[in-house]
């Protein structure tokens, strides 16, 4: 497996940007004792390789103090790529993982009411062809969550906009997307 190669400077830049992405290149450069040009190049590279992404994070309480809901989905193995893509399109679902072992798919979302959980599962998850069952569990307390880490994926676009609609066989290889990117270096 090819590793992503990041040096000390990259990690320091990531650390600063994780605290405040609004810091200017000049401020970062000054803090790390490098030139503004170096900072700009490094950030651009990290972005281009999809190793960092800038996002607006809203406060949990301002978002209505939602609870994390985990949906363990048992599904037809042959339809997993299709189902993973379909689930990613559901706005209320924040995370979709193709899982080996416990379930076929693990979907997670932040919800403010049980009714909303039920509606999403009844109307968006269970009707999908290939879904056999959904095991739901609800988080009652969060002890740790590192919001600075995620999987940076290309945005899933709504259906019918050209190339964004992946043909089923194509996504079978999607898991190797990251490796492809690494090899290209």
């Amino acid at each position, binding site marked *: 497996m090819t590793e992503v190669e990041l040096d000390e400077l990259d990690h320091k830049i990531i650390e600063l940007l*994780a605290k405040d992405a609004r810091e200017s290149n000049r401020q970062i450069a000054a803090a790390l004792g490098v030139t503004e040009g170096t900072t700009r190049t490094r950030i651009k590279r990290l972005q281009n390789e999809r190793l960092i992404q800038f*996002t607006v994070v809203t*406060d949990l*309480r301002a978002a209505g103090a939602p609870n994390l809901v985990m949906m363990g989905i048992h599904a037809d193995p042959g339809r997993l790529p299709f189902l993973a893509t379909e689930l990613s399109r559901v706005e209320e679902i924040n995370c979709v993982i193709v899982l080996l072992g*416990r379930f076929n798919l693990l979907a997670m979302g932040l919800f403010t009411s049980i009714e909303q959980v039920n509606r999403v599962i009844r109307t968006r998850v269970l009707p999908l062809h290939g879904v056999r069952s959904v095991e739901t569990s609800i988080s009652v307390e969060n002890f740790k969550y590192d919001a600075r880490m995620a999987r940076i994926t290309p945005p899933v676009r709504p259906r019918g906009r050209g190339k964004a609609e992946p043909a089923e066989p194509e996504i079978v290889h999607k898991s190797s997307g990251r490796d492809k990117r690494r090899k290209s270096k």
Partner: protein
Amino acid sequence: MATRGIHATNTIGTLMKIRKGTAPAEELDAVDNSILEILRSDGRATNQDIAEKLSLSAATVSARIRRMEESKLMRVVAVADFAAHGYNILIAVGVKVFGRDASEVARELAKLPEVFSVHLMNGSHDLELLVGLREFSEISVFLRDHVARIPGVFELTPGIAADIVKFEFNVAPL
């Protein structure tokens, strides 16, 4: 207008916030929301760029962003990919606890650096963990030597991520 609408339909959320006594005091207006919209697509757009797009002054944009950040309504941050931290393997582990308070076990698990989320659950397992590891061989070492040794850990059900198709929470305690 938009804020008003959200409030009317979000009474429960508001009540919860009041109960916890830490509701953000400030509200967002239309200008704030337009700024946020630009920041969502480009978090590092300069104040000048944003100002030009919205026909405002750069000073106004800067003040608005500072106000939103200081009142903890939002923050613009960089999110790094698991791979940037050297984590090539992600596992989701369900933990059953026996003979000990699950919260205590959760606190101990939260101390492990590989564990990046710990939730106390209502469902098939008492706790759910998301864990980042560097390589395949670390899975058994981690589960056997680090997790299984914590008193109260009774049963572990791990699942290995074959593909992470979506991962965008964009919400965190600020």
